[in-house]
């Protein structure tokens, strides 16, 4: 327990993670890691070891190393919190304890996304089309609407066979009407726009773009992201708690510094 709660172990784990994640940044666009990052984003990678055999070896080493180092840091965080901070009671340590436990919850919520819930990105649907999601729900697009100016640009690019660049910060020139069903029973229907997702049955539907099919009667399709993140609310709550503890700690330290020399 003493070794696991050591500050030196925390430093070693954090240093290793800094280097490991920096290595991941370097590899993020490489064939070794890019496909794995996409699979990790979709979810279920850890629960389906059959996918591991198809993954590039270097990328797999990186993912497993990241999980091992993250796990080590989480264990160290928990042990340190439950021994050193609990044993030496003070208001400052109570805030530090709250901050550390909240950060631990944030880390756990991140880790949980690898096994619970899923995400599917850039699903292209034309009006009338539908697709089946991993949990059996069917997502359908009833209609996609683009404002005239944006529609003209979309059609011009489609006719020139250009790849439409994703807008850096989309400003919402239209909307899409979608519906969700399961085994023939409709679960709901709603409208999505940029930054205005629609939620039903624990699923979140986001409109992230459009595509156009030129012709005598041009058709506008929607590009959608679908996600099921049951731990999103606890994640944000833990994050907010961490920030509240940090703010209180900063105020406490500033007051202590004003009243006397701060301790390093």
């Amino acid at each position, binding site marked *: 327990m003493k070794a696991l709660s050591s*500050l*030196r172990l*925390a*430093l070693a784990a*954090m*240093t290793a*993670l*800094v280097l490991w*994640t*920096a290595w*991941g*940044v370097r590899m*993020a*666009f490489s064939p070794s890691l890019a496909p794995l*990052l*996409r699979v*990790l*984003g979709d979810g279920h990678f850890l629960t389906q070891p059959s996918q591991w055999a198809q993954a590039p070896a270097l990328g797999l080493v990186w993912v497993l190393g990241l999980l091992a180092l993250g796990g080590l840091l989480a264990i160290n965080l928990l042990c340190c919190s439950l021994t050193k901070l609990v044993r030496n009671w003070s208001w400052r340590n109570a805030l530090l304890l709250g901050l550390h436990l909240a950060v631990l919850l944030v880390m756990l919520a*991140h880790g949980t*996304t690898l096994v619970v819930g899923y*995400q599917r*990105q850039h699903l292209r649907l034309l009006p009338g089309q539908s697709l089946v999601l991993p949990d059996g729900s069917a997502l359908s697009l009833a209609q996609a609407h683009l404002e005239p100016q944006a529609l003209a640009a979309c059609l011009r690019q489609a006719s020139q066979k250009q790849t439409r660049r994703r807008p*850096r*910060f*989309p*400003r*919402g020139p239209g909307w899409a009407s979608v519906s969700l069903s399961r085994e023939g029973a409709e679960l709901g229907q709603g409208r999505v726009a*940029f*930054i*205005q*997702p629609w939620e039903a049955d624990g699923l*979140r*539907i*986001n409109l*992230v773009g459009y595509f156009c099919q030129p012709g005598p009667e041009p058709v506008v399709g929607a590009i959608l*992201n*679908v*996600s099921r*993140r049951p731990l*999103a609310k606890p*994640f*944000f709550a833990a*994050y*907010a708690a*961490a*920030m509240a503890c*940090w*703010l209180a*700690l*900063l105020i406490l*330290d*500033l007051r202590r*510094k004003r009243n006397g*020399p*701060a*301790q*390093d």
Partner: protein
Amino acid sequence: MAYACALAGYGLAALGGARGWRGLAAGGGGLGLAGCLLGVIAVAWSTGRPAFYGPYETVMMVGLWLGLLAMWDALSRRLAVAAWSWGLGAVLMPWLLFTPIKAAPINLIPGYLWMPLFFELRLAAQALLLYAAACHLAAWRGAGNGAAARGRLALLGGWGAFMAGELVGALWSYDWLGDFWQWNAGFLSSTSLLLLMGLGLHLPPSWAARPWLRLVVGAAPGVALNLVTLSHQMGMGS
């Protein structure tokens, strides 16, 4: 004009602070601060939004925050820390020689606050962490443990501002893309930087007593965050 004032002002202030010429330091610091303020106001005036994105706005905003902290130090008779802050501000300015000096061509999403707030918190973190670097540099050059303690507080402040930015960024990502985390280079880079900031806050007391080690872990986050942000934004702009 604003940029020239900021560049010359912080350069002169750093020189004055290093030599102990208080008049030159205060005048230069004031000129640099006025230049950054003018730049930020010009961006708001021409675009109708606050300055928050792109190399020019980033440098002007970080310069503004850093200049305010340095001026506060100078007025509190902590000229060594102020001189290093101005010096780092002066080092930051020449980045704009390699990029057009103008506001970024982006607009706010009407009524949507998470996006600009994310960038503003990042800018605050950049400035606070550079200030932490200045404090640690001053402590290393003999300004004492008081400067190191200020550096640690600034590091804690910068860590929190960055973390708050990450929270706001997660909310933005959740609204925009449907998930609070994305497996890509940007999110991994943020995690790396957050952990780098954490190193300086977890030094064992015996290690913190070594000035060179305290300098490395105290200054690295500010340097790294500013380098990563500016090189990313300049790469995007090209």
